């Protein structure tokens, strides 16, 4: 069975500063893993690199989701493929109602799968 997530020798930097220096991790379907470490060890960086946030440069290695490399994918593509990041400090979008946002997110996924949008 293909692992859900495979991180292979991942290296990543912010600007000139290397932060991830060769991470290896395999997560199979149904497993829950907790990553722990002291402040500044690169936990948040790893989450951001996985989710595809701007400002982080992958300098080596690969990340596979269900056997498919995701490093070439944009953040929203990865999200639709199944990557979900819970934010430490939730972001507020002024004037955007919760329902509107949920609808937009759900419809983005549905369109991607070729389904109809819902109202």
């Amino acid at each position, binding site marked *: 069975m293909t692992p859900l997530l495979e991180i292979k020798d991942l290296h990543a930097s912010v600007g000139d500063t290397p932060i991830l220096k060769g991470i290896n991790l395999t997560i199979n379907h149904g497993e829950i893993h907790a990553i722990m470490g002291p402040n500044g060890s690169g936990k948040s960086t790893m989450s951001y690199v996985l989710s595809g946030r701007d400002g982080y440069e992958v300098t080596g290695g690969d990340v596979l989701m269900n056997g498919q490399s995701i490093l070439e994918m944009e953040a*929203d593509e990865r999200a639709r493929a199944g990557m979900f990041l819970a934010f430490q400090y939730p972001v507020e979008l002024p*004037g*955007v109602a919760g329902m509107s946002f949920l609808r*937009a997110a759900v419809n983005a996924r549905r369109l991607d799968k070729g389904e109809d949008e819902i109202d």
Partner: protein
Amino acid sequence: MAATLETIETLEQATGKYKYGFVTDIESDKAPKGLNEDIIRFISAKKDEPEWMLEWRLKAFAVWQKMDSPDWAKLDIPPIDYQDAYYYAAPKTSDGPASLDEVDPELLRTYEKLGIPISEQKLLAGVVAVDAVFDSVSVATTFRDELAKAGVIFCPISEAIREYPELIKTYMGSVVPVADNYFSALNAAVFTDGSFVYIPKGVRCPMELSTYFRINEQNTGQFERTLIIAEDSSYVSYLEGCTAPQRDENQLHAAVVELVAMQDAEIKYSTVQNWYPGDENGKGGIYNFVTKRGACRGDRSKISWTQVETGSAITWKYPSCILQGKDSVGEFYSVALTNNFQQADTGTKMIHIGEGSRSTIISKGISAGRSQNCYRGLVRIQPGAENARNFTQCDSLLVGDRCGAHTVPYIVSRNPSAKIEHEATTSRISEDQLFYCLQRGISEEDAVSLIVNGFCKEVMKELPMEFAVEAQKLIGISLEGSVG
């Protein structure tokens, strides 16, 4: 000899009477280029206007010639050659595309994105299709009957000049005098068409009036002139404009809109403007220089302006309210979006004259690309406006780092009992906000549209439903290519 007779006959057919000695070819589609007294007579004759209307135009023209073009705005306007334009062009009837297949596919793509139904698309694209024309004629006829039953007059202003001269003489130019500014003087001289609306006492207009349904067989919208009169205790909601991009070879659109609200009357005027904004390099595009003003003449009268301006290369307008009546109310809700190289200098003037008068100003400016967006507002409290109140909120949103947002608010209070509140914010679409949307699967383009629409919510909810839905989509489309 025969040629001259022919010309005379054609003239008579076209105008009903042989008025003036000039021999310009009236049956042609366009007046000759340029602006002079003859052209004004030509326009007046084409519209079969009474003598007094022509006199009014000629006086306005004389006034205009003595004025200079204003240059105080934060706008970079290339010099306009007023002689290098046609001031009258006949309706485009038989030269349109035969079907939607012949229409510019880019235009059709926009129509589709805006969710405009096919029959309306045909009408907008000028497609000569029997079914579309028939539909609009029959629909408009049904409306006219319903309006007539209520006593509401809704017709082109050229018709009103002929049919309701007393109303025109009383009200036209009473809110925006001819000499008010350079463009109002020009408009008074050469206005081509526009709407006339009259709501009798106590009548609540049974439906929303829209320029789309006023059969404008003239379709020469270059210098529109609109006049709306609401008698005591009446109500009307008027929608102007179109979400579909209006390409027009006429570059200057200098319209004048006058609203008059009597005691306890209310006029709601909504505009969605999407004139051709020029290309991504700032070449071409319409100049939208408009004077709009509402007079709240009666006690407890109310005028609300709601506008969504996304088009035009240059937008220059200040829909305003003169709050004469006691406890009269003026409102201004605006979204002005500029992208690429567009420019906007827009806002409002609230002039408080009556005791207890109140005004609300909510302005949302969105700048993207390399555009410049300026809010310019005036809140003026006159000495007699006891206990007047104003609330102003102007917010700017910058998309990208090459655009500009400016605010020029004027507050002039000559009565110490006035309460004036002013709030302003400037913000950007933060990276955090964008990333949050992306991480939830929403594409960057949709994310910007979502965030911007959230930003504009307070204004959008003032728009009539059909307009609001289209306007939201329009904002999304207008921001295309603005990120990255």
